[in-house]
């Protein structure tokens, strides 16, 4: 039995976990639920030795443990499938499974033992895979099973699964969960982190719900809850409804952005959307539904194969982001702040001015002062806390980074903004400020497409909500901001759509 008591973990400036306890019993599946940033992944990383706790203790079969690293935890019998893919593509299935502890004899890799151990792990899962196949040739679902087999090597007793089905189809997920049930029946303790409540309710026995680094439900039998109750616990009533000034959208005005029957090279089919000036259209869906990819297709980064894009009523063929920005005034606040949104080593002023050098330049030359003034203006307007416009963006907190990432589009005077997961990894208070900001932009007359996997956020902010699943729009709802009803309608849309596509 793995027991975590009162775990505390602090990162500079934020308490990621604040006294969380968790019990994992043999022969039982325990669900670990919570919103993005609630502390689930941090908890998983504490239990597997990736991070060390700042307080509390972890006991395993009665002994207190301090894991020095991932390998240490695995040796103790705790295996994990992280959210990120952790396989070496060029290596064989067998080698990936036993990578922690490659068997050797006299300095030479013992391929026979390596294979035998891999076959044993695969048999535990009752999965038929050739252990000699390179992982690069497997499907995503197969690779995920290899991850589990890898976590099971070294006589694992406790298995932690962090979003194991995020990139799997419904069928593939079903198959994965049948493996999970088998492991449970074989006496393993399993912890499951997942956003997909349907799956959680189908497979888990007990549940712990985290919110803002604390547990709001601890080790409770899942049978005592309905899905809606769990959602309430996760988001917290207080934040479920975002109280914002009401705006009225003129339904007659020409849409700023209109997609009709758009298909893309990535497989989007028949996408139709309308966003009017002063309006927020929520685009809700699960991770992997193809929302960001749709946004990128609008920007010209992915190929649109058929259908039309109308900008302010005129057909537009956008081939580059530069064109989207300078000609059509469309901005895209990316979900991947660090990878795609910011230049972390560069000063804040340049991060903001990057879209407007064309305008700031006199005879091709840009003056630093103009840049800094611009940065100052937007820092004030958005409440970005910087000590100087020269400060590198990487030094800012997540919330302030996100504001910088937004500021460059405002500086460019975009009138259509696509905002992708604006509050991921941002704490609750900053989140509220951000929501106000977004609503304010709409009130100023911008047309906003809000891509979000955060249900309360979508229901709180959007005027209308389009629901996307598996590269298609499965429905559009007028939003009356009644959270319980809207959230149920949206979840139903996604799930009925899933059964349709699975059939």
């Amino acid at each position, binding site marked *: 039995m793995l027991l975590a008591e009162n775990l505390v973990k602090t990162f500079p400036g934020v308490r990621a976990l604040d006294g969380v306890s968790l019990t994992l019993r043999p022969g039982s599946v325990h669900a670990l639920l919570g919103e993005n940033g609630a502390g689930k992944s941090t908890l998983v990383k504490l239990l597997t030795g990736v991070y060390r706790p700042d307080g509390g203790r972890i006991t395993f079969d009665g002994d207190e443990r301090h894991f020095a*690293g991932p390998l240490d935890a695995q040796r103790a019998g705790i295996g994990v499938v992280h959210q990120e893919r952790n396989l*070496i593509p060029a290596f064989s299935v067998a080698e990936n499974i036993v990578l922690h502890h490659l068997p050797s004899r006299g300095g030479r890799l013992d391929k026979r033992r390596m294979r035998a151990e891999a076959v044993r792990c695969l048999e535990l899962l009752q999965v038929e895979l050739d252990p000699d196949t390179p992982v690069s*040739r497997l499907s995503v679902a*197969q690779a995920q099973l290899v991850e589990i087999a890898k976590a099971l090597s070294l006589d694992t007793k406790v298995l932690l699964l962090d979003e194991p089905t995020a990139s799997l189809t419904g069928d593939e997920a079903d198959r994965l969960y049948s493996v999970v049930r088998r492991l449970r029946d074989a006496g393993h303790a399993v912890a499951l982190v997942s956003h997909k409540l349907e799956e959680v309710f189908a497979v888990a026995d007990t549940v712990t719900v985290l919110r803002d680094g604390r547990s709001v439900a601890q080790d409770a039998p899942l049978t005592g809850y309905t899905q809606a109750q769990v959602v309430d616990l996760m988001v917290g009533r207080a934040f479920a409804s975002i109280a914002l000034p009401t705006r009225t959208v003129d339904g007659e005005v020409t849409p700023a952005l209109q997609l009709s029957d758009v298909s893309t090279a990535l497989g989007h089919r028949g996408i139709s959307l309308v966003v009017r000036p002063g309006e927020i259209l929520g685009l809700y869906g699960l991770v992997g539904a193809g929302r960001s990819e749709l946004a990128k297709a609008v920007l010209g980064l992915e190929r649109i194969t058929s259908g039309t894009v109308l900008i302010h009523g005129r057909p537009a063929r956008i081939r580059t982001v530069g064109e989207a920005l300078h000609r059509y005034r469309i901005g895209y606040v990316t979900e991947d702040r660090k990878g795609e949104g910011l230049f972390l080593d560069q000063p804040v002023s340049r991060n903001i001015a990057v879209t407007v050098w064309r305008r700031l330049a006199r005879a091709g030359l840009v003056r630093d002062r103009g840049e800094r003034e611009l940065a100052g203006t937007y820092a004030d307007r958005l409440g970005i806390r910087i000590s100087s416009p020269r400060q590198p963006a990487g030094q800012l907190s997540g919330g302030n980074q996100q504001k910088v990432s937004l500021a460059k589009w405002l500086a460019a005077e975009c009138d259509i903004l696509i905002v992708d997961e604006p509050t991921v990894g941002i704490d609750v208070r900053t989140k509220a400020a951000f929501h106000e900001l977004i609503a304010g932009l709409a009130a100023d007359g911008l047309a906003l497409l809000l891509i979000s996997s955060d249900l309360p956020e979508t229901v709180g902010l959007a005027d209308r909500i389009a629901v996307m699943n598996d590269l298609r729009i499965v429905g559009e709802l007028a939003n009356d901001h009644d959270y319980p009803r809207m959230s149920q309608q949206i979840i139903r849309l996604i799930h009925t759509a899933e059964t349709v596509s699975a059939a």
Partner: protein
Amino acid sequence: MTLTATQRSTLPGRHLWQAPEFTLAVIAVAGFAALAVATGGNLLSAGTLGAFFRFLAVPIVIGLSQMVVLAVGQMNLSVGALTGFCAMAAAWLMLEAGLPAPLAVLAALLLGLFAGVTNGVLVVLTRINGFIVTLATMTIIQGLRYGVNGPDTFQGYSPGLREFGRASILGLPAVFLVALAVAALVALFFSRTVPGRHLLASGGSPFAARLSGISNDRSLIVAHGLSGLLAGVAAVLTVAASGSVNATIGDDLLLPSFAAPIIGGVALTGGMVSVTGTLLAAFLVRLVDVMQAQFGINPRWVDLIIGAVVLGAVLLGTVRTKLQERSD
């Protein structure tokens, strides 16, 4: 990491003839045969053939030396200078310090290993790009190499060693066989030993490797150390095969050290090696060299051809990937 939604479908099994090494092998065999015919069989005479393979030994080993660091996504600019320095040191030990040849050889190997490990430690400690670190150590080693004997040449060292350099076994030069044996060991290291596998894992996906309990720092040091050791081997082969050494040894090895693995299909990003590819590429380069000598072509054509081949291979590779993506 590379498993994305677009790659869902299981790729078809790769056949032997699709391997890049196979293409290289075909070109090598065809080229060799063509050259043999064109020279009226002269290439196959014992003397010419012996020289052909004798001067293939060092390019092979130096190519491997570079390949080992490419496997972890690093570069080692000091391979050439280090080879020269180790060669000079070995000669000095035999002539000036009066050490017997086997000890001098051992010392040269250890010196290479030490310099390589130093490179690795510097990379790990400073967290500065290996390119720059080895640029610095290269210039230092160039100075040291010169310091051993100034501009003068060492010759007349150990008759046994020079004898070994000229010796042939079954018609093949002993130094070439040593190079082949070293290549086999390197191949074995990467395919069959735990440190070798760890090194490739670190090079391919440092993040995944770390979560699997592999120390990426150790992989960096092992790779650089091995690279240095192989430079030491190249030094010993040079000392044996050439009969005299001076401070210019190694100056012309740096660029070929990159050419062999790159033509051989080794990626600069790390995570994969091809000993066969590197061997074949070194063979090809040597073939072009001999062709030039046989026909009295301007030696610069060799460089032009090698450059064009690498650029062509690069472009072809891109076109092939694009076509594959489209057909998926």
